[in-house]
């Protein structure tokens, strides 16, 4: 069963476009959140650390100034005052004398190296140790000063940021997953609907079409295109069926007649009946072959293979020739052919096919026009060929039908002709991208064949 395999594949969810879209969506969301958080983290903590360093630097500067003005004693007092005012307990100092002894401060010891250093304070009795940012400065007139700050607030900020990033990331991931699922489900549903519709077409419901929403997104465009293709296929199938029916139906009549004639001749079996019977049989054969030739030609033209033979042509000369060819035949029926053809009207197309199409139109006019009447063949500068007769015309509701193969008006059934003339005209018109209109000449039939300018065709 051919429809089983797509259905099977649809059950493997990880193979669906929806799943891939969801996954990609999620991945991109996570990446984006991580990148944003990283940038925020880097910028914020960097800023906080710089602030801390600046504070240490300016504090150290003030104390060095105090040493310069008031000596070590003044510095010691300032340090004590600062420590007494520090409620947060994040400030650390060490003032050492010239021999390295501690004069003031809450740091037990510190390396006497000038410049920035990172210290680890092992506080007695406390479980946690503190990380300090320290600046060592030799004092003017001897001694050494270390100003330090606890970096814990910065670390706290970091962990806060990290926590926030986690929440944001998690939320984004959840939203991404949800969005991806929704989006994916939409895609899956649309695809499934198209799949189901096409499966119905495949199973023989050739008239079934894909659903189209009013929105008109790419799925609708695709569906519309597929529907158009299905319309075309259905049209071609109908044409084919029509031709088959036509052949079966309309060729049966002359074939039956032929067979009857031959049987009758065989039964009679004398020389006087042989000859006329054979001649009549040959005429039947001719008629059959003509029908075949006409059908083949229409099929060939409808197939569009003839467009390769298109070339610039003199429409005026073409129309004049056809008018001239049919003038005597029309006169036999007492009809007058009025040709209204300005010279040198050019067109682009297949000369032979256009000649035959115009000849068919004139033939119809001669055949169906009033005896002793008037036939008009006109060519406009806009490449519109008009053929008018003053016969009974075609009722408006029948005008489309006469363009089909083998269609003949009931009134014409008794007259000769296979009803293929206008079908060929219609096929030639379509091949040329020309507009074919059947109208009323009041009274009579008016046929207009409007050729497009220059090279044309769909």
């Amino acid at each position, binding site marked *: 069963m051919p429809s089983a395999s797509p259905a099977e594949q649809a059950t493997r969810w990880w193979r669906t476009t929806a799943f891939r879209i969801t996954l990609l969506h999620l991945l991109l969301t996570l990446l984006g959140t991580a990148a944003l958080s990283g940038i925020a983290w880097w910028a914020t903590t960097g800023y906080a650390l710089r602030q801390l360093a600046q504070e240490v630097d300016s504090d150290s500067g003030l104390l060095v100034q105090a040493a310069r003005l008031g000596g070590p004693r003044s510095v010691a007092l300032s340090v004590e005052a600062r420590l007494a005012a520090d409620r947060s307990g994040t400030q650390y100092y060490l003032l050492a004398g010239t021999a390295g002894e501690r004069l003031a401060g809450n740091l037990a010891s510190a390396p006497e190296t000038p410049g920035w250093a990172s210290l680890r304070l092992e506080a007695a009795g406390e479980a946690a140790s503190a990380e300090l940012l320290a600046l060592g400065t030799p004092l003017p007139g001897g001694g050494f000063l270390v100003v330090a700050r606890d970096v814990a607030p910065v670390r706290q900020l970091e962990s806060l940021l990290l926590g926030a990033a986690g929440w944001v990331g998690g939320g984004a991931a959840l939203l991404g997953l949800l969005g991806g699922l929704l989006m994916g489900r939409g895609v899956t549903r649309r695809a499934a609907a198209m799949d189901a519709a096409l499966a119905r077409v495949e199973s023989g419901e050739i008239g079934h079409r894909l659903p189209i929403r009013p929105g008109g997104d790419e799925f609708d465009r695709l569906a519309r295109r597929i529907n158009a293709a299905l319309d075309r296929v259905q049209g071609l199938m109908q044409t084919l069926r029509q031709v088959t029916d036509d052949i079966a139906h309309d060729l049966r009549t002359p074939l039956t007649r032929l067979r009857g004639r031959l049987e009758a001749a065989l039964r009679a079996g004398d020389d006087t009946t042989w000859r006329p019977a054979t001649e009549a049989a040959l005429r039947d054969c001719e008629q059959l072959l003509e029908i075949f030739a006409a059908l083949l030609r229409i099929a060939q033209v409808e197939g569009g293979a003839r467009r390769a033979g298109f070339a610039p042509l003199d429409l005026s000369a073409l129309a004049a020739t056809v008018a001239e*060819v*049919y003038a005597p*035949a029309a006169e*036999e029926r007492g009809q007058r052919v009025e040709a209204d053809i300005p010279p040198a009207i050019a067109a682009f197309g297949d000369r032979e096919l256009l*000649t*035959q199409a115009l000849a068919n139109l004139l033939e119809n006019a001669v055949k169906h026009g009033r005896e002793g009447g008037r036939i008009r063949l006109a060519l406009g500068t806009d490449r519109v060929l008009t053929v008018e007769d003053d016969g009974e015309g075609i009722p408006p509701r029948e005008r489309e039908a006469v363009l089909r193969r083998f269609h003949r008006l009931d009134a014409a059934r008794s007259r*000769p002709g296979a009803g293929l*003339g206008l079908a060929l005209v219609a096929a030639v018109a379509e091949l040329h991208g020309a507009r074919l209109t059947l109208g009323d000449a009041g009274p009579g039939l008016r046929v207009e064949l409007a050729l497009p300018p220059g090279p044309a065709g769909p």
Partner: protein
Amino acid sequence: MKILLVEDDAETAGFIRRGLTEAGHVVDHAADGADGLHLAMQASHDVLVVDRMLPRLDGLALVRALRAAGQRTPVLFLTARTGVGDRVEGLEAGADDYLGKPFAFAELMARLNALARRPPMATEATTLQVADLEMDLLRRTVTRAGRRIDLQPREFRLLEYLMRRAGQVVTRTMLLEGVWDFHFDPKTSVVETHVSRLRAKLGEPPLIHTMRGAGYAIRQPG
């Protein structure tokens, strides 16, 4: 006439051969393209009848090879493919005429006669004559027994076509193709009406004769 027939279908070949022999012609037959080319290269025939689709070497290739070798014997293509493109292709390959299957034997006969008796280009005549009917091709005038007959351009062409083949049978389709460039068969009797008008214009006794079931011929009355 000596005619070479290259046709692979035995029944069609037999039917054509019988008809041509009965008409007093000599017929050589080849059943495939390679044999056909071999026989045709001997250049001893007046006209070749070649089927389009042949085993071993198809008709188009046969005619191309023949023409490439400088062989100018007239060729008539016989074919079941009668699309316009097919006809043009056949003529471009070097064939001189083209006849779709199935065909009336009279049609084939008339076309072969026309091909075989076609005058060489060099000896292009400036006047044509049948009995007391004279056509001046340069001055575009027609006289019968010295009396001027006025013809429309297309009537002139029709008469010229017939007079160039005086004494030969010219079929309806040959006239449609040769005079009006119509490569299809109109239902209306356009050829008949044109010919009968021309016949009337030419006066008595009639010079254009209707050959029943075949076509027309212009020749001396009687």
